[in-house]
């Protein structure tokens, strides 16, 4: 089809606001980030920023706190992504079966998703407090533990609380996504499986899961990105403590930038993370496209 001049002008007009916002608020910061990562940019160099070569990158990679934070982010993602996908999928399977109260269940299961991270983190902090409700129940009611458990005071204790929060908050989203996918699985596939005498487990493995492969990969990509994005829950629950043991990539980056003023270091760190994630996500995207043929 050929477009007239007027049409072309209108197309440009429609594109313009978006391009403008991208150029100023996204592209420029990306370029700036890249440049900053090669400069010595800290509070003692607030006005002029001498070229620093790769020293910021070396500082990041040689930093034991960064390595701790990176491992924490990896663990967080590796635990919360499958955790919330499996639980969300189970709820979706059950919901797909019931014939009453569907909407009520859906709304209630979705409540944690719409609760803000700040609020949800504070609830968890309150519940998991050493003197909190959970320890009271475990120690004084169920007698499962002889002393209060210090959930928030150790590296893995704090990480577990944050990860439980991540899973708790993600079940609802996965439920909705998987429920929608389950409804698209052709009924005749199940009938064919029944004819072959397949049990419930076999139907799940051979019919349901392959049919919703696209959705699984979509959720996987979105949630992996989300996992590396974790910031607020860690900041509110442990604040990175004790001694930066529960910092994740973004809380460590924020700390270096805004508490110690090492903007160059923070920029290099951001860039490394972006590259890692871009590679990871594009691999997942590739996988998704291939499987969908």
């Amino acid at each position: 089809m050929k477009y007239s001049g007027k049409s072309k002008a209108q197309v440009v007009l429609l594109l313009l606001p978006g391009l403008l916002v991208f150029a100023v608020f996204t592209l420029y910061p990306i370029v700036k980030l890249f440049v900053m990562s090669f400069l010595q940019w800290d509070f003692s160099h607030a006005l002029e920023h001498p070229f620093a070569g790769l020293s910021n990158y070396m500082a990041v990679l040689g930093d034991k706190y960064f390595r701790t934070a990176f491992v924490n982010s990896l663990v967080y993602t590796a635990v919360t992504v499958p955790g919330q996908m499996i639980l969300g999928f189970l709820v979706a399977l059950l919901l797909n079966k019931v014939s009453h109260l569907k909407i009520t269940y859906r709304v209630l299961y979705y409540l944690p998703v719409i609760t803000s991270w700040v609020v949800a983190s504070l609830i968890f902090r309150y519940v998991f407090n050493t003197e909190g409700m959970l320890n009271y129940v475990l120690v004084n009611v169920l007698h499962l533990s002889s002393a209060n458990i210090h959930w928030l005071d150790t590296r893995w204790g704090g990480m577990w609380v944050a990860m439980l929060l991540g899973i708790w908050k993600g079940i609802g989203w996965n439920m909705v996504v998987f429920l929608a996918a389950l409804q698209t699985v052709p009924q005749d596939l199940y009938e064919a499986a029944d004819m072959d005498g397949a049990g419930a487990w076999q139907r799940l493995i051979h019919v349901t899961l392959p049919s919703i492969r696209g959705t699984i990969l979509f959720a996987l990509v979105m949630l992996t990105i989300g996992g590396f994005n974790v910031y607020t829950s860690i900041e509110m629950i442990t604040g990175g403590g004790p001694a930066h043991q529960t910092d994740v990539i973004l809380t460590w980056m924020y700390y270096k930038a805004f508490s110690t003023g090492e903007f160059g270091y923070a920029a290099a760190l951001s860039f490394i993370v972006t590259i890692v994630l871009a590679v990871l996500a594009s691999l997942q995207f590739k996988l998704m496209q291939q499987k969908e043929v």
Partner: protein
Amino acid sequence: MTGTKKVLAALLTTSIGLAAFTGCGSSTPAQSETTDQVDQSSATSETTASTAETSAAEEPSEEVTINFWHHYSAQSPENDTLTNVLIPEFEKENPGITVNAVSHEWADLHEKILISAQSDTLPDVARLDSAWVPEFEKMGILQPLDETMTDFTDVSDGLLESAMSTARVGDHYYGLALNTNTKILFYNAEAFADAGIEAPKTMDEFVEDAKLLSGTNANGQQVWGYDEPALAGWNLCPFIWSMGGSITNDEQTKATGYINSKETVAAIQMLKDLYDAGAITGWNSGDIPMTDGFGTGRYMMLLEGPWKISEMAGSYPDFNYKTAEVPAGDGGSVSVLGGEDIAMLSDANKEASWKFIKFMTGEFAQEEMAKCGQIPVNKEALESDTVKNADFAPFLEAITTAKSRPTVSCWTDMDSELSVAVSDVMNGNKTAQQAMDDLAAEFDEMLAEE
């Protein structure tokens, strides 16, 4: 022409369409109403802002707003006094000057000032922990008040010399002292009486008592002999100094041989042993907050400042506690000197800010703040009945032997490294000697860059 019309039509349809679904059917009117209100209120505030600007241009020094950042906690009596008593009084005395007070958490305030220094959005006046003054001076964001203000000495002569010294870096003063404080021992009087013991006078007694009073209460809940809410210099210094240790040499140029000296390591080891014995806690994320833990009988002892008295009176008025001086060790009974300075920042409106600074260090403001547990530095206010009736005497006594934390510009960094190192000791990742040796090397490097 038709083109423009179509653009308008397109925009109109889109916005109507959007309004329809963002409003979700029946709730549309209510929602758009609130939006309108917000729009209006923000519009009004913008207009007032612009009128203020224009009138300022026409009649200089008429309408001024000064931003004052502080770290009086948001729901504290100090903040109530500031916003309900002091600022209204100041604005009445100085028509045309409006004070916009902003409260931040202590650590957030430090962070916010560093960030704002990068963006030229610093406030006019700030209440600073005196330990930050050298750092901010080095960044060049504080006004040397003795140079800029002609009546500086008239004002500073009315304030305590010891407190004023915290605002001094090199040959100049970069602020006025605002309040002074130190920490003393608070203890649960009932529990001590029940155990038949007196307040600990020495560090050895302190260790004994802390262990003795730890355990479980009638409800089966754990009880700790002592609470320390963090592991920074403010928290550790009384122990280090009283036991004869130190952070750096007197010239503040070297840490090796001081922060890792036998005495300093012994102080850290003492806290570690108490922690292992379940006798102290407080710095962990999951711990009970200090005031609540003390008031509900879960923490038996604290080292705290004068504000704790009004805090306890507010939250736990019936609680029976007493105070004593910091237990003495080989170095004597040495507490940590605290206190705040009020400073003017680089881009401040000088005239209005100076008026506000003078007001805050004046007799009226100092006396009002004394009612909420802030020890005045104004000599006249110190003589007032309010101050005489307040329970400041033990603090004023402790101030005479209290020491300042190192007055170096890298103190904030040293401080956070110190808490990381001591956390490592507490969690058993390093021995006290090892952690302090590593720390000494780091401190030396930092101090060399001063």
